[in-house]
């Protein structure tokens, strides 16, 4: 098994909206298995774009993304969906929970999409929500939770199908200090369970717990350090 779980080769993304905007250019990146990496840089310089490309949410203009030996740029949309379902978990800045569902159902839906039968979904969802300390909020709706609690639901959901990689886009962007501290504890806990974690962030606190920091400026990889 490859030591590098994620690898990019000359990854370039250009947005065409009447005029060309270069979001990423020739990015060569390697993420080791089990690492906790942090992508930093000024706003609008390509951090989220890089995260979306390595998570298979978007397609590059050129270059390649490898998940172990699988070239994500060469597979069709359904295969990519399968990869997102089973191998990658996402956590976003604005939590992105489904407002009509309860906390429990928001986790169960990830299991449903992976084809887990309803009778097995509940046990797994309760276990994950217990892991993030929300066992008493199972039937609450997202709008009844604080920002920190919503982010914990999002983390539980991202872990539902036991993915290898957790990709987080500004996970502490909408959280207060206390909630951010809880989030960091959860991230470390997840990483200690062997998950590879990649976080896009502006937060120095998040950077502090990372094993490595990747800087991006003007769509280019600026510096990579341990």
């Amino acid at each position, binding site marked *: 098994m490859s030591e590098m779980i994620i690898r990019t080769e000359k990854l370039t993304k250009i947005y065409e909206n009447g005029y060309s905007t270069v979001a990423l250019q020739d990015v060569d990146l390697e993420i080791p298995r089990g690492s906790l990496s942090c992508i930093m840089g000024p706003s609008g310089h390509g951090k989220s774009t890089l995260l*979306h490309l390595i998570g298979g*949410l978007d397609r590059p203009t050129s270059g390649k993304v490898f998940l172990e030996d699988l070239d994500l740029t060469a597979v069709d949309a359904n295969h990519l969906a399968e*990869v997102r*379902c089973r191998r990658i978990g996402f956590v976003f800045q604005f939590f992105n929970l489904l407002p009509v569902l309860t906390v429990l159902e928001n986790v169960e839906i990830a299991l*449903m999409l992976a084809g887990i039968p309803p009778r097995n979904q509940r046990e797994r969802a309760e276990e994950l929500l217990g892991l993030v300390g929300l066992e008493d909020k199972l039937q609450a709706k997202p709008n009844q939770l604080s920002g920190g609690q919503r982010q914990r639901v999002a983390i539980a959901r991202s872990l539902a199908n036991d993915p290898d990689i957790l990709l987080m886009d500004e996970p502490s962007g909408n959280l207060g200090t206390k909630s951010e501290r809880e989030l960091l504890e959860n991230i470390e806990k997840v990483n200690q369970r062997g998950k590879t974690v990649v976080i896009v962030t502006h937060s120095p606190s998040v950077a502090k717990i990372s094993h490595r920091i990747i800087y991006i400026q003007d769509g280019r990889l600026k510096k990579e350090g341990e």
Partner: protein
Amino acid sequence: MTRGKLVFKNLTRKKSRFLFTILGIAVGIASLVTLLSLGTGLEAEVKKQSQALGAELVVTPKGWCAYEQISVLTGESLPEAIPNEDVEKVAGITGITAVPYLVQRTAIKNQPVTVVGILPEPMKQFKNWQIDRGEYRLDRESVVVGSSIAQQFELKAGDKLTIRGTGFILRGILKEMGNRDDLVIYLDLATAQKLYGVGDKVSFIAVKVDDVTQMDRYSQEIQERANVAVVSDKQLIRSVLAIMGTVRNTLQMIAAVAVLAAAFGIINTMLTAIHERKREIGILQALGARRRTIFSLFLYESALYGLLGGVLGLAAGFALSFFAAPYIEQSEFTAFLGSAQSVKMFSPAVVGQAMLFAVVVACLAGIYPAWKASRLSPVEAISYE
């Protein structure tokens, strides 16, 4: 969590929009069901009236069209066109019993009523009528009426009746026959001919044959002897049903257009929902939902609109057809539908056709919005604000 649960939760999140979209479908289906229900009883009702006529052959003037043939069964007024000379020629044929009809209209308390001039004794035997109250007597001053007419206008034997300005005495009320005979005032033929000023003419002649295997021969003989046309009861039913069927199909087409209009309501609702839930579609895609999963979720929503609208429309349609049937204005086209008995309530065929139509139309309406949702780019969808 199941797809069904997710679909239902999404569907009902905007309750007023959900309700109005359902109502759009329900109104269309209700009108379709009403017309289907009324139409289902049509054939049976036409056959029933044909049986009530009690004739295997109907002698009509030459050149009658199918609309006039309908009136033989519905009791609408008919032009007088067969002279007495021809009636006698037909009646003189061995092996048949012929009874002439002169069908006209009058009004009692401003309500239109059918008046039929008949030969009293032959007709009584022909129809096997029984008298319920009073006596069976028809002459220049006396009439008898069907049971429904007596009931509707609260008539009793001995009452006075005015027909076209002439006074008559109601001598008797016939026993209920369960057909259009109950809705008629019967006059002696000669009296009716004089009253309506039609000379010695009648509208048509009903003929009963002794040997039904010789129908063609009798038919030919009648046409050879008299200047008339002959139609068999089966031909009569066929041509009546053909015309009624055309009218029914046209009305059902109009109802179907109403359902199709509601389908555009579904498309609009679904496109709005997709626009509003773009980010949620992105979330599902990030969680690993395939294109066909997104497609099926939105298609199920459309189908559910059709299903629920169909159920509501069925209930409303059955209720409407049950309550509306007795109030349908009598005419050549609706005469057979004018009774609640002619409405086949909860016919499996009507339920099946209406539900299938509702769901198929809703699914077709959902295809484009569902396809649009499934083609969204995950990153665009999830970044949508």
